[in-house]
């Protein structure tokens, strides 16, 4: 089959590899019909996630059709259409039983690496380094899905791929970020970043009762989408002297009640701290660049919540812990417990509350993945979200502007 393989920093290749096989009784094999490139895949592309190996198959946002099931999988049949969570959970351990699916104890065969780096191991992930299991990912024609009896969500008849594809990661991730804010009546939610996860966090903040949503980014088309689709007030961080001052002014000196860092470890910025991080990260003295996180902590209202869906992989410097402590902030974070949110959010989509396809700007055949990664990383061609079609049916589709100047993908 054809598969998108990591070959090193900035080196993505589509290679011909063997088809996956059932390896364990609870496995299934899925023929992938759609696979997205995630913002977190860019951390791999840029070489910032340790324990990647040349030849690793990427992709953790995918869906498709079941073509084979292991002997222990009783609830799926060949031909079922499924969307698969990016984290792999056994469904039976202490963590799965408490719906902390991304912390599953039994899905990572390489716990020893994660334990050395983090004390304990999170769940296995598709296509996201050997520290989290080294599972072959779904940017391929076929993928092996472990614990297939508890992980995939069956897609109701008649729903097109693009309506449900993002239930495997970014919609639940944005939702959990907003839920972690514990939004109360009258709350203002500020979101750093206007990428796809941020867009879903904005949608979710409204669903959970936010009074006001403010989005911060410097990429025009992303700010536009946050404005049009997300109905958010926006701050272009390149156009203001200080994001902090601007937020203070907008909130009458209080600061936002909830601050969401939907940027993570590769924050861009031109401030002194951002340049410091870039230098240290380049020299491998710091693994992550936490500019957005620092700003979120500094901006947050006293007693407020900082919620972190943006990925961090290692160590960060100069985090204003004193501010977080003395302002009595709550910090919430973690890989998304996707399984918890798939069904309720599917209902939201079915009800017409949210149209997830709004973030899609590019639909490409799998073989164009190397170009797609570059375009997405460099935010060229107004790229916000790429969906790869392994069946070759994707075509380079430039964005369509709607009447309001918003970016809308065609369904």
């Amino acid at each position, binding site marked *: 089959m054809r598969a998108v393989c990591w070959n090193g920093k900035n080196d993505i290749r589509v290679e011909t590899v063997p088809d996956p096989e059932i390896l364990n009784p609870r496995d299934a094999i899925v023929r992938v019909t759609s696979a997205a490139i995630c913002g977190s895949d860019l951390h791999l592309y840029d070489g910032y996630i340790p324990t990647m190996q*040349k030849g690793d198959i990427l992709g953790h946002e995918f869906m498709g059709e079941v073509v084979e099931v292991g002997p222990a999988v009783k609830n799926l049949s060949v031909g079922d259409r499924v969307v698969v969570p990016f984290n792999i959970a056994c469904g039976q351990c202490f963590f799965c039983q408490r719906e902390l699916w991304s912390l599953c104890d*039994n899905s990572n*065969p390489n716990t*020893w*690496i994660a334990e050395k780096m983090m004390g304990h191991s999170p769940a296995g992930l598709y296509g996201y380094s050997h520290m989290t299991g080294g599972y072959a990912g779904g940017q391929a024609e076929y993928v092996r899905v472990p614990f297939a009896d508890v992980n995939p969500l069956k897609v109701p008849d008649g729903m097109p791929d693009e309506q449900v594809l993002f239930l495997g990661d970014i919609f639940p991730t944005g939702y959990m970020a907003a839920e972690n804010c514990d939004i109360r009546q009258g709350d203002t939610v500020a979101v750093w970043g206007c990428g796809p996860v941020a867009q879903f966090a904005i949608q979710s903040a409204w669903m959970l009762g936010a009074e006001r949503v403010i989005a911060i980014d410097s990429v025009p088309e992303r700010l536009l989408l946050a404005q049009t689709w997300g109905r958010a007030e926006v701050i272009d961080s390149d156009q203001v002297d200080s994001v902090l001052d601007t937020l203070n002014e907008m909130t009458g000196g209080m600061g936002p009640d909830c601050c969401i860092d939907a940027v993570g470890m590769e924050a861009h910025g031109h401030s002194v701290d951002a340049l410091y991080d870039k230098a240290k990260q380049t020299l491998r003295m710091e693994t992550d660049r936490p500019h957005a996180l620092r700003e979120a902590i500094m901006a947050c209202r006293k007693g407020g919540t900082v919620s972190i869906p943006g990925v961090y992989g290692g160590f960060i410097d100069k985090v204003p812990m004193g501010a977080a402590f003395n302002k009595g902030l709550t910090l919430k974070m973690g890989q998304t417990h996707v399984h918890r949110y798939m069904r309720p959010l599917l209902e939201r989509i079915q009800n017409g509350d949210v149209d997830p396809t709004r973030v899609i700007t590019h639909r490409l055949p799998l073989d164009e993945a190397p170009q797609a990664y570059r375009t997405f990383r460099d935010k060229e061609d107004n790229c916000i979200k790429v969906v790869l079609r392994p069946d070759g049916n994707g075509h380079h589709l430039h964005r369509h502007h709607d009447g309001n100047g918003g970016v809308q993908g065609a369904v």
Partner: protein
Amino acid sequence: MRDDVNLNPSHQGTGSLEVHRTSDFDAEQEESNLAGKVGQAVMIVSGAALVAFAARRRSWSTLGAALAGAPLLYRGATGHWPTPQAVTQRVGASAPKPVEASVTIGKPAEELYTFWRNLENLPQFMKNLESVVNLGNGRSHWVAKSPLGFKVEWDAEIVEEREGHFLSWRSLPGAQVHNAGTVLFEPALGGRGTVVRVTLEFKPAGLGSAIGKILRPTTEQEVREDLRRFKNLMEAGEIPTTDGQPAGQRHLLSLRSPF
């Protein structure tokens, strides 16, 4: 000097070992010049290369390389040629401490005990074991894999068992590798299942297994990995794996998990 493996009473007299080690220490002092250090490094590297070559090929034709490499490696690492006397005394003196590890498993102690007590199940999660056959009357025959492809076999007996709670076993006299183990199953706090605590002791006997000990000590990490697999099997019904999954072109020297 503490002899941590108390399986064989003859190794408990530590007085003579103290004397021997003092003279070892003097000899090491003499060698601690730069040339000696370089020489030792060369011996380690060349010895390890020969052994690694043999381990990779695993054929009779490379056995010679292994036999030539191992003493070099030993000498490089310790500063002594592995004469039979030096080996037995050193192994006795520096015998590894019992390895201890524990894990919490979300299942009742009785269920875990029952699975473990059927010793023939152990190779399902103990990676270095090839098979265990129940011989009846509390006795069993164990076959383990060594990195050079040789099999190590021994007979063992159950020493003590308290149903649903505790089990201990040890190898019978004459084993190539003296070993013993205990496993304790105790209820975890808050109804979280069972805490499983394991201790394992290994003491190779004779020259051949002394080399085995140097190359392949049983580490705490290995026991922890075995216990993780036990937990995976008991809770999830299977052990997660990626062995056999597809991948693109790997590097020639692609790393594999040692566990």
